[in-house]
């Protein structure tokens, strides 16, 4: 700048005008402000992203780790466990989890949580990834509108953690058999669904909830019948041995199957609301609808050994029910012990006849049945124990028309209905078999055997005589016959002298005969030759005659 050789004294200088132009370095304050803004915005974003915290109580916190265990929805992590502690009563483990903000809408009152651990069963293997990565908490959202932050975790995973489309059905059964949750449901050997829940209802029956995946849920119609497919169905029928299973897995682990019911089921409403009956097996499921059973009582005066509870009751050969009780009664007036058999009948199985009758009557009431049975009894319907198998001695009750049987009283007002009975024929059979045995017993078997023995001895002697005498003679005769035949053979041989002589003789004879014929011809032409003799000049020699024949 300007360098003054003589710096003026301070007094001469004008007062410096302070110009605060150098504000640019102050821009450095932008940096902490920007840092603060970034920090605060991050905090706000973090706070905004802060999802809800849920508390889930489990019976056991096995494998759950704070800060590590994830909460997954459809296999995507939506949260992380933030705390695990015991509940106040030390009965459960309370797991707190921080979920992401977008998972907040999944938290409904009926949202389900469960701990996913590796599970290896006959039917399925699941959660194997948790072997290495540790457990995680599965989550399934619900349908409720109410929101909730406190949940009770499931002890076992629901069969359907995130639902494919389909239909849930309720099956009712007295006994569900061995049906684990997740057991397969088959439609014509195809797995189309699974068992997702089982409940024991207050009345002691079981309700099985199954899920049929779409589009197979279209196969479920009101007439569909469900049955327990676990086990092997072995049937020995007229067409041979018939083994039926749904799948090996179903045999071991249990399973259900369904199919269209019998055609008759079309006429019976039911199942439209997703409620079905679960039958014990396929044949039971496919039986025509039975309607309500009716109970009847029969009084037999003979011993019924071999009649068991469950024995069939057949009406003209058709199974229409089964025996439910066999009791011993006591008749005081003649001090006898009749056998009282109670049976349940499904009158619908009697077929059209009953339906016609039921249609005429008001409803399917006991009165209708009583009236129907009354007419049948008048026509000779009787209950009769019969032998189902001679081998096992099992009995069944046959309801059959036996017009020859004595007239029986039928009181349609007694409940349960009491059917008139006749005694079984199996005892007659026994008697006749006994008679047969007795006759066989009476046969003089020993004597017959002795006679037979004598005869056989005689026969033996005769045969040995034949052997000793007749046979050697026969051998001699045969050898003589053999030499005779041999000589005959030799005689007839072409080379034998006899043969040759015979041949010569025959040719001689032939030429002789030729000469005779020529003579006869000559005489025929010249009959005078007989008187005058032959004229040699006119008659050419035999060879010449043949040439003259050739000339003309």
């Amino acid at each position, binding site marked *: 700048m300007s360098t003054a050789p003589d710096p003026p004294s301070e007094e001469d200088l004008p007062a410096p005008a302070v110009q605060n132009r150098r504000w640019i*370095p102050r821009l*450095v304050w932008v*940096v*902490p402000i920007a*840092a603060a803004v970034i920090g605060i915005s*991050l*905090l706000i974003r973090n706070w905004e992203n802060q999802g809800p915290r849920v508390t889930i109580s489990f019976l056991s916190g096995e494998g759950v780790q704070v800060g*590590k265990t994830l909460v997954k929805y459809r296999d995507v992590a939506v949260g992380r466990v933030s705390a695990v502690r015991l509940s106040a009563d030390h009965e459960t483990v309370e797991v707190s989890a921080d979920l992401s903000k977008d998972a907040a809408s999944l938290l409904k009152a009926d949202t389900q949580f469960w701990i996913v651990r590796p599970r290896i069963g006959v039917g399925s293997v699941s959660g194997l990834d948790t072997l290495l*990565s*540790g457990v995680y908490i599965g989550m399934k959202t619900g349908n409720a509108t109410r929101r909730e932050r406190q949940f009770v975790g499931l002890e076992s995973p629901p069969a359907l953690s995130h639902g494919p489309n389909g239909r849930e059905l309720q099956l009712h059964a007295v006994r569900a058999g061995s049906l684990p949750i997740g057991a397969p449901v088959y439609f014509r050997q195809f797995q189309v669904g699974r068992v997702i829940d089982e409940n024991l209802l207050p009345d002691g029956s079981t309700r099985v909830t199954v899920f049929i995946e779409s589009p197979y849920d279209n196969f479920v119609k009101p007439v569909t019948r469900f049955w327990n497919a676990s086990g092997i169905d072995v049937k020995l029928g007229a067409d041979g041995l018939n083994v039926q299973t749904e799948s090996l897995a179903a045999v071991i682990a249990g399973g259900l199957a369904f199919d269209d019911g019998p055609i008759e089921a079309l006429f019976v409403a039911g199942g439209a609301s997703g409620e079905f009956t679960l039958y014990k097996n396929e044949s039971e499921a496919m039986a025509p609808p039975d309607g309500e059973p009716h109970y009847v009582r029969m009084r037999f005066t003979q011993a019924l050994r071999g009649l068991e509870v469950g024995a069939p009751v057949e009406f003209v050969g058709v199974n229409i029910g089964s025996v439910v009780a066999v009791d011993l009664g006591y008749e005081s007036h003649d001090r006898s012990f009749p056998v009282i058999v109670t049976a349940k009948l499904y009158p619908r199985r009697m077929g059209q006849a009953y339906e016609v009758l039921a249609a005429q009557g008001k409803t399917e009431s006991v009165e209708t049945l009583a009236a129907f049975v009354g007419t049948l009894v008048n026509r000779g319907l009787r209950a009769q124990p019969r032998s189902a198998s001679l081998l096992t001695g099992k009995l069944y009750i046959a309801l059959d028309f036996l017009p020859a049987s004595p007239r029986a009283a039928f009181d349609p007002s007694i409940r349960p209905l009491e059917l008139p009975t006749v005694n079984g024929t199996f005892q007659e059979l026994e008697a006749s078999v006994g008679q047969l045995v007795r006759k066989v017993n009476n046969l003089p078997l020993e004597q017959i055997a002795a006679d037979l023995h004598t005869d056989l001895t005689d026969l033996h002697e005769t045969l040995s005589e034949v052997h000793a005498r007749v046979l050697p003679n026969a051998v001699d005769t045969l050898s003589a016959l053999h030499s005779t035949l041999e000589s005959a053979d030799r005689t007839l041989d072409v080379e034998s002298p006899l043969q040759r002589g015979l041949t010569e003789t025959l040719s001689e004879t032939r030429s002789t005969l030729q000469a005779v014929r020529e003579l006869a011809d000559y005489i025929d032409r010249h009959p005078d030759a007989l008187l005058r003799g032959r004229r040699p000049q006119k008659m050419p020699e035999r060879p010449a005659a043949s040439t003259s024949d050739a000339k003309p």
Partner: protein
Amino acid sequence: MDQRCPRCRSRIERRAPFSTEMTLAWLIAGIVLYIPANLLPVMHTSGLLGEEDSTILGGILEFWRSGDWDIALLIFTASVAVPFTKFIAIGLLVFTVRKNSRWQQHQRTALYRIVEFIGYWSMLDVIVVALTAALMQFQVLGAAEPRAGIAFFCAVVVVTMLSALSFDPRLIWDRPA
């Protein structure tokens, strides 16, 4: 008034202008940035055993718990002790200079030298993360990725170094006018 270098024409000042102000500004920026650097995860590791976000303090605790107290101590020194020391030291220097204090001038100068020196060594965390992320890339078996926290931490180191650089140690010795 303006005195300029006859050769490069840059302004000649008796003392670095706005030294304490700029130091303070950088210092505040460093402190502000240090908060997200510690709250946000610095590294994301994923592997067969699950995936995890780790923060600086979380990593130190993890090492400490698993028995590697030496590594824990090293990381603690580099990423907690050193930045805090720098914040406190620079804050103390700025404060005393503003007050025109004549207290412990020698020691304060020495403190400034130390702060300036350790600034170069504060990038330990950043280097650890950079190396881990570069080396640990085994796809499914294991992978490490840096996360936002480490960028903030890096910024903290840079900003505190700038803070130390903008401080004019001669101010320590200045007498009040």
